[in-house]
């Protein structure tokens, strides 16, 4: 009881800190200083070392004339599951794609503000998006295995990085971590496209973790799957958070509530309305708009 109260108090504090940062950005601020403030709230709830690994500062994204994100300030803790929820077009996927600079691939997209990964602004000129994406893996909405064998799909990332030592072993490890090994160990040479949708998505997760990234971004990874496949993916995500920082975008609020430690609520217009411990967001959000959204009054 008292712990709950403490949590919500501290969460309120950290939210107001974020708001303060949004209204008056500190030009000289070291991102790590602010991160250390957010850390405490995280520690209370989960008991793990939730050092922020990704932090955005006044992040704005435009697609041509349309603004997709507005002054987003967000610190994502290490080795936890952070969920991004919100209605369609709220910018949650855009935020995700800023983290590994996938928005670079869209000609009309323009990013302003800062996004730090382990203290380094990924939008600095000297950052190589290719190298960045090797440390921040991604899983997409629709399973998109390459039209190659199961083995070659998992080996792909290792091969382009020339990490072909003990390739068989690494492929096996990745498939085991993705809870797919037992289903495919006798058919590694079979085309990945012959797998079911849920298996394909776990293969995509295996492909992403094979190169041992620090962060895994997931863009509605279960939205194209049936409930059983979805529940397998959800179990897997919770396991992955023991070793990786997981950021997941989802349409499904129950899913966010089930699997995430932290939840960020984006609402229409690309505005981050509230970011806090998942329990707090779903039980006692500060914002009326978030409560309306969570309870289904809108969105």
């Amino acid at each position, binding site marked *: 009881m008292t712990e709950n109260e403490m949590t919500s108090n501290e969460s309120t504090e950290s939210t107001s800190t974020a708001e303060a940062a949004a209204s008056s950005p500190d030009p000289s601020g070291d991102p790590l200083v602010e991160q250390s403030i957010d850390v405490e709230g995280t520690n209370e709830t989960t008991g793990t070392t939730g050092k922020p690994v990704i932090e955005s500062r006044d992040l704005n994204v435009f697609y041509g004339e349309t603004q997709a994100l507005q002054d987003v300030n967000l610190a994502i803790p290490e080795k936890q599951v952070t969920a991004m929820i919100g209605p369609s077009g709220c910018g949650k996927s855009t935020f995700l794609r800023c983290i590994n600079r*996938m928005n670079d691939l869209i000609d009309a997209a323009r990013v302003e503000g800062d996004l730090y990964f382990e203290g380094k602004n990924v939008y600095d000129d000297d950052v190589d998006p*290719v190298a960045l994406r090797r440390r921040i893996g991604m899983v997409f909405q629709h399973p998109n295995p390459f*039209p*190659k064998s199961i083995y070659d799909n998992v080996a792909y990332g290792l091969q382009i990085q020339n990490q072909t030592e003990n390739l068989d072993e690494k492929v096996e490890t990745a498939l085991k971590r993705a809870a797919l090994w037992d289903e495919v160990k006798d058919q590694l040479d079979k085309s990945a496209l012959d797998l079911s949708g849920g298996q394909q998505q776990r293969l995509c997760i295996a492909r992403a973790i094979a*190169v041992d990234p620090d962060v895994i971004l997931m863009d509605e990874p279960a939205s194209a799957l049936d409930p059983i496949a979805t529940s397998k993916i959800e179990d897997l995500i919770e396991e992955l958070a023991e070793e990786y920082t997981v950021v997941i975008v989802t349409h499904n609020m129950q899913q966010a509530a089930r699997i995430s430690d932290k939840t960020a609520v984006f609402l229409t217009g690309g505005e981050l309305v509230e970011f806090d411990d998942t329990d707090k967001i779903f039980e006692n959000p500060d914002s009326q708009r978030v409560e309306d959204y969570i309870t289904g009054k809108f969105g």
Partner: protein
Amino acid sequence: MSTETPGPDITSRPSGRAARERMYRYVLLMCAATSILVTVSIVVLLARDAITFFTLVNPVNFFTGTEFLISRDVYGLLPLLSGTLLVTVISAVIALPTGLAAAVYLSEYASSRMRSVLKPGLEILAGIPTVVYGIFALVYVTPFLQSIGLPVNTFNILSASIMVGIMIIPMVSSLSEDAMSAVPDSLRQAGYGMGATKFEVTTGVVVPAAASGIFSSFILALSRAIGETMIVVVAAGSRPRMLNLSDPLANIYQGYQPMTAAMVQINSADTVSQLGFTSLFAIGLTLFVITFLLNLLSNRIAARYREEYE
């Protein structure tokens, strides 16, 4: 919707509609059947005259003969096949890599503005009459080859094959580009998400995913090269010649007469024996079988390796 305003009577059927529908159906069927009918007739007539030829000339002698001399009624296919083989190989060496590279550029690298300029440009290349390519080979390419020190004859298979290669580039690039454009963007995203560079995504993801379309574009282009006539008639000379296997490179500097060119010559010769005339059909049938098999192969490859994307 309500009983007060009944809609039109749903049981009234205009008389004669069924008959009209039947007529449309048959007219359309006849149009569709015509092309098949014509093809079948051609094959049948080709085969009939070829059989006449083969009753007079032993097929074994025809397919293994190393001399082709109409004036002495000697009909060996191999010299003509040598010419056709050279044209096919040389033009493939030129067209397949170039066409594929052009397709990769158009599909993966070009901006939409660049593409809107280059694609129609390539299609214009496909619209040039082949006789123009032939004259270009004779008048410009051969002198150019001589000027850079290659010992080519006035009529030579190299310059003809270069132009055949250039002629089929648009075919390779256009069909390959279609295949690559059909690769879902989600696969490229997956590649980039793994930290692949653009070149790695192109060569490791897009090209393999489009392999069936690319291979069938190759094969269709090859069968086009095999059937090409005007360029070789104009630029490759009129002497059937056997491949000299001991010095393969020297072959390309000489004139050859591929199967198609030989058929033109027989057909337009002033005096030709009855046997010579029927040899036309034997060569034609052989040519048809080769290109038919290639097209069949192309379809098989396309069907076998086609990946299903939603």
